C-alpha cells in the first residue's frame, strides 16, 4: 500500500533510483502483500511492482515468476521484509534528520555474516536486520539454492551454523521447518534452512557453511531418502 501511495504522489523517482542502487545485484520483485491468505494458502501476490531500467517503476497484474531481463532490477521480498526495506529507504529519503546520523543508524542495523562454501572459501557480507540468509546470499551472488523461494517447501537452502552459540540464539525450528530439514543432504546438529534464519543483532558474526552435498551423495552405500 505504501508503494502505491508513493507512486501516486510522484515520490517514486528518487526512491526508485535509490532502490535501483540497492538492488543492482539483486533479483526479485516487490510483492505487495495485500492479503494474508490467498489462493495458495500461504501468500498471494495481487500486484507486483518492478523497476524497469527504461520505464522506471511500473506495476503489473500478478504474473508468477516474472522473468528477469537485463536492464531490469527486481527486488524479491515478502510483505514483512518489504516493510523493513521501506523503513530503511524512507529514512534515507524522507527523514528530517541529517544524512550523517541516518547513515550511522543504517550501519548499525546490519550484521556481519560469513558464508563458507564446500571448498572452504569464505565470503563476509553485511546483512540488514530482518533479511533472511537466503535473500542475503542471493543479493551477494553466493551460491545458495532456493528452489521454493522461501516457502518452506524444499531443503535446498540448507546451511550449517558453524558456531553453537549462534545456533542456540536462533528460535527453535517449527514443525514445518523440521519436516524440510528431514530431507536435507548432509544434515548436522546445527543445520537450519537459510530462508528461516532472519538477521538480528545477536547473530552478528555468524558463520554459515554450505553443506558438502556431493560428499554425502551416493557414496559408501548412502541411499537417498525415499520421497
Amino acid at each position, binding site marked *: 500500500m505504501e508503494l502505491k501511495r508513493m507512486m501516486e504522489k510522484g515520490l517514486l523517482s528518487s526512491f526508485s533510483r535509490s532502490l535501483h542502487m540497492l538492488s543492482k545485484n539483486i533479483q526479485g520483485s516487490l510483492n505487495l502483500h495485500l492479503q494474508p491468505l490467498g489462493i495458495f494458502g500461504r501468500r498471494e501476490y495481487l500486484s507486483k511492482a518492478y523497476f524497469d531500467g527504461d520505464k522506471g517503476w511500473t506495476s503489473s497484474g500478478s504474473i508468477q515468476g516474472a522473468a528477469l531481463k537485463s536492464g531490469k532490477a527486481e527486488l524479491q521480498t515478502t510483505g514483512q521484509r518489504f516493510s523493513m526495506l521501506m523503513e530503511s529507504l524512507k529514512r534515507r529519503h524522507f527523514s528530517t534528520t541529517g544524512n550523517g546520523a541516518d547513515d550511522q543508524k543504517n550501519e548499525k542495523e546490519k550484521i556481519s555474516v560469513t558464508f563458507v562454501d564446500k571448498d572452504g572459501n569464505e565470503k563476509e557480507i553485511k546483512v540488514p536486520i530482518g533479511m533472511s540468509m537466503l535473500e542475503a546470499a542471493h543479493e551477494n551472488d553466493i551460491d545458495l539454492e532456493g528452489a521454493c523461494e522461501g516457502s518452506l517447501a524444499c531443503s535446498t537452502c540448507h546451511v550449517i551454523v558453524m558456531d553453537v552459540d549462534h545456533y542456540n540464539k536462533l528460535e527453535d525450528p517449527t514443525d514445518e521447518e523440521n*519436516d524440510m530439514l528431514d530431507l536435507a543432504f548432509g544434515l548436522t546438529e546445527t543445520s537450519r534452512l537459510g530462508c528461516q534464519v532472519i538477521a538480528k543483532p545477536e547473530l552478528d558474526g555468524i558463520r554459515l557453511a554450505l553443506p558438502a552435498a556431493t560428499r554425502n551423495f551416493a557414496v559408501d552405500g548412502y541411499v537417498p531418502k525415499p520421497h
Partner: protein
Amino acid sequence: MALSSLQKWFFRGICSASSKPLHVCVVGGGPAGFYTAEKMLKAHKEVQLDIIDRLPTPFGLVRSGVAPDHPETKIVVNQFSRLAENERFSFFGNVSLGTSVSLSELCDIYHVVVLAYGAESDRILGIPGEDLNGIHSAREFVWWYNGHPDCKCVAPELKTTDTAVVLGQGNVALDIARILLQDPAELERTDIAEHALASLRESSIRKVYLVGRRGPVQAACTAKELREILSLKHVQVHIQEADLVKSPLDEEELKRSRIQRRVYDLLSKIASSQPSDHVSCERDLHFVFFRRPASFLPCNDANKVCRVRLEKTFLKENGATGRQSAVGSGEFEELECGLVFKSIGYKSLPVDGLPFNDQKGIVPNDRGRVLSNAGKEPSNFVPGLYVVGWLKRGPTGIIATNLYCAEETVGSITEDLQQGALHPHISLDKPGRDGLLHILQDKNIRFVSFKDWEKINTKEINDGKLKSKPREKITSWEELQEIATQ
C-alpha cells in the same frame, strides 16, 4: 565438483583459448534435465546446450507429478525458466527420443549427450488379476488429475464404489489418498485438471486403505505429507495399536534415521488419538501394515476387480545390512474394494542402442558415465554419453535430489573433458543445434520452442483467472500444439 580452484582456472583458460563451442544435448526437460543444463552452462562458457522433451510442455513431473494442492513445490519452475534467457540455451519440445530423433543421431551431432528422461512406466506386481478393470498405476492416476495429455482418456471410475485400496505407503500413495478423500471444494482453486475435478465432485469414494507390506517403522512417506493428511477435514485416520509394536531391529532402524523416527512418532499419535475427536467424519483413511497383495478377484462382473487378497507378512533381517524385508506368513485375508491404485514405484523405459539394466530399471553407469557392459567388468564407458536423474539412480528422491545428482554427472563430464577422456571425439566439429534443426526439418517435425511454451503458459494462466485457479491446464495434444504454433 571435485576440482581445485587452480585446476578450474587452468581449464577455463584452455577452453576460452579455443573458441569452438561444445555442443550438449540433454534428453528430458524435468528437474534432472534443467539442473544439469544450469550447471553445465555455468561451469563451461563454451557450451551450447539444448534440452529436448517429447511433450510440448517442459518441467516434467513438476508439472505432471506434484499434486495440485502443493503449489509451493512448483515454484522451482521460476528458476528453470530463467535458463531460457541464456543465449546458449534452447528448448525443443515435441521432440521424442526414438521417434523424432534416434540416440545415434544425437550422438553424431552433439559432443555430449545427457539422458534425463526419467521413468515413464510402472513396476508391476506380477500377481493374478492384475489386468482387471478398476486397477490403475499411481502414475496413470497422477497424470490424469494433473492433466497430462497422455492420460486424459484413462479415467478411473469413481462413481461405482465407496472403497479404494492404495498399495504402497510412499508420498505418492498419500497424494492419491488425499486427492480421493479431500473435499472437492478445497481443490477448486488449484491447478487440478478440470475433468478430474468434475469426476471427483461425483465420486462415491468414502474409504481408502493405504496398504504396506512392512510396518510403520519402514513407512516410506515423510512427515510433511503425513501431517497434511492428518489435518484433512471430515476424514478420520485409523491405525491399529498392535501394528506399532517395535522389535529390537526396528529400534535400531529408528535410531539411524531421523526421517523414520519423526514419521513413526506421527503414526503413533494417530493410533492413540480418540476417535470421537471429530464431530462428523464422513470419510475414512486406514493405514494397513504387514500385508502384501497376493491376487485381485472379480465378483459378478468377471472383468472388474471387487476384492484384493492380502497375505499377512512378518519382518526378517536381510543379510547383515540392518534392512528388514517382508516375508509371507501363509495367512490370508480379503479387502472388498472397487478401485485399486498400485503405488509401488515407477520404472524407466529402455531405448534402442542404450545399455539398460532391466532388473533395476536404470542405465548402468558410474557416477553418470554410461557403461556399455551392463556394469560388468571390464567396464567400458560409452564416450560422450551420460545419464542423470531417475534414469541414473532409480525412481526415488525429491526434486532436490536431482540437484546433487546433476552436480555429480556434470562433475564427471567436467573431469572427462579436462582429462582428455573424450578425445578425439570432442575435437570433431559437430553441428549441434543446427544439426538437430536439420533433422527435424527433414522429418517435418514442428518443435515447440520455449517462447512457444510461454504462449501455452500464458493461455493456461489467463484461463485459470476466470476460475480463480493459478492455471487451467490444457490437456490435449492437439490443443497444446495448436496454441504453441500460433
